[in-house]
């Protein structure tokens, strides 16, 4: 698709009123639909069980929602990218959220969040494969113990819940957001705080970054 408008023309035309604006909006909608379809095409397995018509309809819905979002945020476009690149991200955001929702629909997140503190009493954080020497194995057991301790003693319940869902069960952020009735920023912050506490805990117990990561690489 050839983008025939400059950034300035896009901004002018979308604010112009009349036929000029209507034509620009129609072109913008096609650009957004294209971005939504492109995002769907990369994730087609998420849509198993849906007919082609249903998928295309969802892409149309994403394009429409993205169009509204773009028009609402038009004044914030600073011209630090091509206008189309800036507009694409709204459609990609809607489309990938839709794809993740389809993939995870019907999965009960409650069943995945066994985050009682004693749920970690015996937990091993990796499957234990590839420990070659007794010494290294002891070091890795220590590492497991420190991680368990931080999770049980230092994390808040919410931080633990988000960690269990996103890190141990690989649930996408948007699904966690929906489950908690929250938003991306808050969930990211919970995970960030959990990472920060884990990092400080590991460093405080003498697990420096390089030697700890290297101890796993030696096992290869």
């Amino acid at each position, binding site marked *: 698709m050839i983008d025939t408008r400059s950034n300035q023309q896009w901004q002018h035309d979308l604010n112009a009123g009349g036929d000029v604006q209507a034509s620009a909006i129609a072109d913008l909608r096609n650009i957004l639909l294209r971005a939504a379809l492109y995002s769907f095409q990369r994730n087609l397995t998420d849509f198993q069980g849906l007919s082609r018509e249903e998928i295309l309809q969802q892409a149309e819905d994403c394009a429409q929602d993205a169009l509204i979002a773009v028009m609402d945020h038009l004044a914030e476009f600073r011209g630090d990218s091509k206008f189309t*690149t800036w507009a694409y991200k709204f459609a*990609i955001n809607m489309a*990938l959220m839709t794809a993740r929702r389809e993939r995870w629909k019907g999965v009960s997140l409650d069943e995945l969040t066994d985050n009682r503190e004693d749920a970690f009493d015996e937990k091993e954080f990796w499957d234990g494969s590839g420990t070659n020497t007794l010494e290294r194995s002891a070091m890795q057991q220590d590492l497991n113990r420190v991680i368990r301790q931080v999770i049980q003693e230092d994390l808040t319940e919410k931080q633990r819940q988000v960690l269990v869902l996103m890190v141990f069960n690989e649930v996408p952020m948007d699904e966690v957001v929906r489950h908690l009735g929250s938003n991306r920023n808050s969930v990211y912050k919970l995970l960030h705080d959990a990472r920060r506490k884990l990092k400080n805990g590991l460093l405080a117990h003498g697990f420096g970054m390089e030697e700890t990561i290297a101890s796993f690489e030696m096992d290869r």
Partner: protein
Amino acid sequence: MKKDRFERWLNDIYTTQEDEISCTECFDQVSHYVELEFSSQDAAAAMPQVQQHLQHCRACREEYEALHDLRQLDEEAKGASLEDLKDSIH
């Protein structure tokens, strides 16, 4: 979890910064970041906080990757048409 995922998680933990930007701030800046990449500039050096957020946030990273690749198709002026894309859905 599998060992390679555990290693990635450890790496995530150790590369945690005291201050990290939010998903909203990343969304706000990611189109600029992609555009820097296409103007042969070192986007990661120019916008380290965006690069750091993308490393840690899978949702934002997947959106960034789609944006980057779609921009790439435009650059090569061989972007699939709307009709081609509709045909690819089946």
